[in-house]
């Protein structure tokens, strides 16, 4: 568990003010009339060897954060520093050279594998591009990776459609590992799998992390799975981080009202506890990311919203050691009184520091 005390090791991944807007073109002349603010100013750090869980409901921008981090999208603004290089500003060729250190495990293991390539081709292709090894050495590496993810070597010449969902996801993991990355974005790697296979894949990811010292950003909407794998958890709502806390602290006592509501939705297996439990049911729908509310993004559905929430966007600030919350309930100004709205904004503008 990480605490807030300053550490000598710099974070592996540093994200500052990441913005990803998708332009909307309307009308006869396809004029640029607005943006879908899928990710609107997200900042966080990931320490080497750590797993950061990223949770939130569908459409809150989780996957977009993951893809923007590896620059699979051209990001609108912000910095992403991975292992000392600012990914956000690299040119195409430099970016390609930087790809081996950061990889991604995709959500849909069927669609994310080229149907016309054999398993050996899929896993070995990054080696063709980024190494000058001969074919024997490449094949040896492919076999090594297949062993690492528990795939039989005899499968090397089969095509993706011949495998089950869990096996395909393991192909995806082996492919991501091929170039010895330090940082892997797992974009809902278990969402398309059934429950028995989910555990297999998550345990595989954990084993690999122990063995290879990997750093994960684990994107998921499955809160119990994130609880199992993550060290710290970021809760996203409508393109912004609502709360970023150590796992145990978050699950024991969520601070942000949205995190509280989200966690209360986790099913409780014990029927007596389940009956006693208070489930927070949010009213209304998620606002459109093309036109988010003026104040806090959550103010339209928040049971604890007050006047200030509808006027000023709260910034993510450290309210307890290691716990960051973007909510006026916890900011000093709100506690002192609702006078210094603009002041509150200025004071918290720095974002997160570890």
């Amino acid at each position: 568990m990480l605490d807030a005390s300053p550490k000598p090791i710099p974070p592996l991944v540093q994200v500052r003010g990441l913005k990803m807007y998708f332009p909307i073109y309307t009308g006869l002349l396809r004029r640029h009339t607005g943006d879908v603010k899928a990710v609107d100013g997200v900042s966080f750090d990931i320490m080497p060897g750590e797993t950061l869980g990223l949770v939130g409901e569908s459409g809150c921008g989780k996957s977009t954060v993951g893809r923007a981090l590896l620059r699979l999208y051209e990001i609108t603004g912000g910095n992403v520093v991975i292992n000392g290089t600012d990914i956000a500003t690299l040119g195409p060729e430099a970016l390609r050279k930087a790809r081996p250190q950061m990889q991604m495990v995709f959500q849909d293991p069927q669609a994310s594998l080229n149907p016309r390539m054999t398993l050996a081709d899929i896993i070995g292709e990054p080696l063709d591009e980024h190494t000058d090894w001969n074919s024997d050495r490449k094949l040896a590496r492919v076999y090594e990776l297949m062993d690492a993810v528990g795939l039989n070597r005899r499968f090397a010449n089969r095509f993706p459609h011949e495998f089950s969902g869990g096996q395909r996801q393991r192909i995806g993991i082996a492919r991501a590992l091929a170039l010895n990355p330090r940082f892997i974005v797992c974009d809902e790697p278990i969402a398309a799998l059934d429950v028995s296979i989910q555990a297999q894949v998550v345990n595989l990811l954990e084993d690999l992390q122990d063995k290879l010292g990997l750093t994960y950003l684990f994107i998921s909407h499955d809160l119990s799975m994130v609880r199992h794998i993550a060290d710290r958890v970021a809760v996203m709502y409508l393109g912004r981080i609502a709360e970023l806390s150590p796992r145990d602290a978050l699950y024991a006592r969520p601070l942000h009202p949205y995190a509280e509501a989200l966690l209360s939705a986790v099913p409780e297996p014990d029927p007596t506890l389940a009956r006693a439990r208070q489930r927070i049911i949010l009213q209304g729908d998620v606002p459109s990311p093309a036109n988010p509310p003026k104040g806090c993004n959550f103010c339209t559905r928040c049971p604890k919203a007050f006047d200030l929430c509808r006027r000023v966007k709260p910034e993510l600030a450290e309210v307890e050691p290691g716990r960051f919350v973007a909510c006026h309930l916890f900011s000093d100004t709100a506690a002192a009184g609702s006078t210094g709205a603009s002041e509150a904004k200025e004071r918290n503008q720095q974002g997160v520091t570890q």
Partner: protein
Amino acid sequence: MLTFTIRRLLMAIPTLLFISLVIFLLVDFAPGSPMSQIPLTVPPEVRLKIIEAMGANDPLFVRYLLWLKQFFWVEPLVLFDTLFGTSHAHGMQRIVSWQSRSPVMDIIWQRLPQTLSVVGSAYVIGVLIALPIGIYSAYRQYSWFDQLGTFIAMIGFSVPTFFTGVVLILVFSVNLGWFPSIYDTSLRVTDWESFLKQVKQMAMPVAVLALYNAAQISRYMRSSMLDNLAQDYVRTARAKGMAERVVVLKHVLRNSLIPVVTVIALGIPTIFGGAIITEQVFKVNGLGALLINAIHGSDLPMVQTLTFIFAVLIVMFNLIADVLYGMLDPRIRYD
């Protein structure tokens, strides 16, 4: 794959027999009769003799069975004889055109080279133009190149070939005098001079047909590329750090070609069918012109045989397209 092919070939036999019957009935029931070709000055009893000699007076099923025998037994034997110098088919009755009184298959063999050289090369050129345009249009969707490609494809689609053909004749033959407006079938390519002449007379009909073919195929290529460019595995390839060229040409293009190859294969029978209208406009003496003349003259054996050959080609190329599909797409196996 082999069992599949053989099974499909066996299944094609009843299909083709049924098609031949339908064609025969259609052609027979169609208005117009061979008798209308005989001048009215010929006395009635002579007329009757002529019709009897042509076999046009026999009952329907007799004529149909006779045609079947001639098509599937006599004509292959004749072909065998000409290839190997034997004389198995000696004295057998071949399918004879009512118009020219010469064997239908001989006429078809005479006409085939014109059609293949003009319509065939137009198809090849059309495909060669269409593929790069389709690929680049999809890769740069909504760019000016794509807009231009879409516009030209729209023209190729919507303006009929008899119009573009006549416009080309007007501009390049009448006004500029660069190309001849009439295709000279009797031209033999013997030296450089005659080769240039052949290229010149082919230029306009080939251009008209190539535009039409390229318009269709480039649209297929474009939409297939767009489908695949949006796929997740393309993002995977980019995340692997592959060069953009490899992503597009290896990952996207190979997957996109599968449906396009099928469309191209299915289009090949139309080459043999000839471009009836374009052949008429440029006076290319090919199969299309042959068919239309036979229809005008109620030449039933000729129409019947030609149409049936087209049917055979269509069935064959359907099979070839399916086999190609199975070879190109590892997800499809016919066993």
